[in-house]
């Protein structure tokens, strides 16, 4: 478990260092994830052993957003008098994007002859 965690943190560190030195427009952990995927492809046996640690962390992914969420409450008044309109915009835009994204996926899948799983 400690060994797995060291590897995971190591890839995050590597991602952060590369993103900063290359000035890439993605976050360090995302690049770390891509590099980590590379390791798993090269060493499938490691994927089996790290599986439970990773899934344990991902099961409670929601929890990790709570501190940032609490921060939003303190800043909600920075939206000023526009808060209602902005909320409405966010809700409408989020619904639209999910609908368009999901239909774009299923229609393209159908177009290339893939069916639902």
């Amino acid at each position, binding site marked *: 478990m400690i060994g797995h965690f060291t590897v*995971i*943190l190591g890839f*995050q560190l590597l991602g952060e260092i590369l993103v900063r030195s290359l000035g890439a*427009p*993605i*976050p360090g*952990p*995302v690049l770390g*994830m*891509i590099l*980590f995927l590379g390791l*798993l*492809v090269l060493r499938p046996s490691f*994927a089996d052993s790290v*599986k439970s640690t*990773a*899934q344990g962390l*991902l099961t409670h*992914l*929601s*929890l*990790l*957003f*709570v*501190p*940032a*969420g*609490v*921060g*939003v*409450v*303190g*800043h*909600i008044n*920075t*939206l000023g008098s*526009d808060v209602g*309109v*902005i909320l*409405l*915009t*966010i809700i409408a*835009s*989020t619904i*639209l*994007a*999910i*609908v*368009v*994204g*999901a*239909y*774009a*996926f*299923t229609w*393209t*899948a159908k177009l290339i002859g*893939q069916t*639902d*799983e």
Partner: protein
Amino acid sequence: MNEFQDIWTYLSSEPLLWLTATLAAYTIGDALFKASGKRAYVNPVLIAVILLAIALTVTGTSYETYFDGAQFVHFMLGPATVCLAVPFYLNLCLVGKSALPMLAALILGSLTAIVSAVGLAYAFGIRGEVLLSLAPKSVTAPVAMGISESIGGSPTLTAVMVILTGITGAIVCTPLLDALKITDYRARGFAVGITSHGIGTARAFQVNETAGTFAGVGMGANALATAIIVPLVLSFF
């Protein structure tokens, strides 16, 4: 009373109290979520945030003091993002053969998220910094804040909008996609990931591992896509 004050002075200067409170609030939120039969609108993040906001207000605690404790939870976002490689790897074949549908959903979904947000807000009379801050709202917070800064928005305002977008997506996605009768968990997850980044991905993992995997891929891909599309879209406004 003095003794109580001594204890409070100790607690409010140590990270232990608010770290425990964060876990406790989430445990309550998660218990309510499970008790509801895992209904999307009983969102554990939203419940925990409301409980903690009340606790901070009642005790007169600043966010900085709270974050001294909560930072340990917040820090885990980085390693958790790296861990997304594991479900990605376990579903590599499925992700690989979905490349084309993902590309279509990424371009159209990302474009819709940006154009509809900026367009609607503009129609409502929003201008300037606030309007610009809305553009990258569907991307994971660190990237969104970077984009916001580079186009003349406010990174703090963007962070607020990003979290609100995440929670909105996590709450509406299941009933919305059920109503549209979209049963393909690849499409469901991917659409939520590109729209509602990590919070949407967390919700997708609660529903189904395939959905969670595709949401994670969508979140990563949209970080890149939005960084490219936002400046293009804004050149038309």
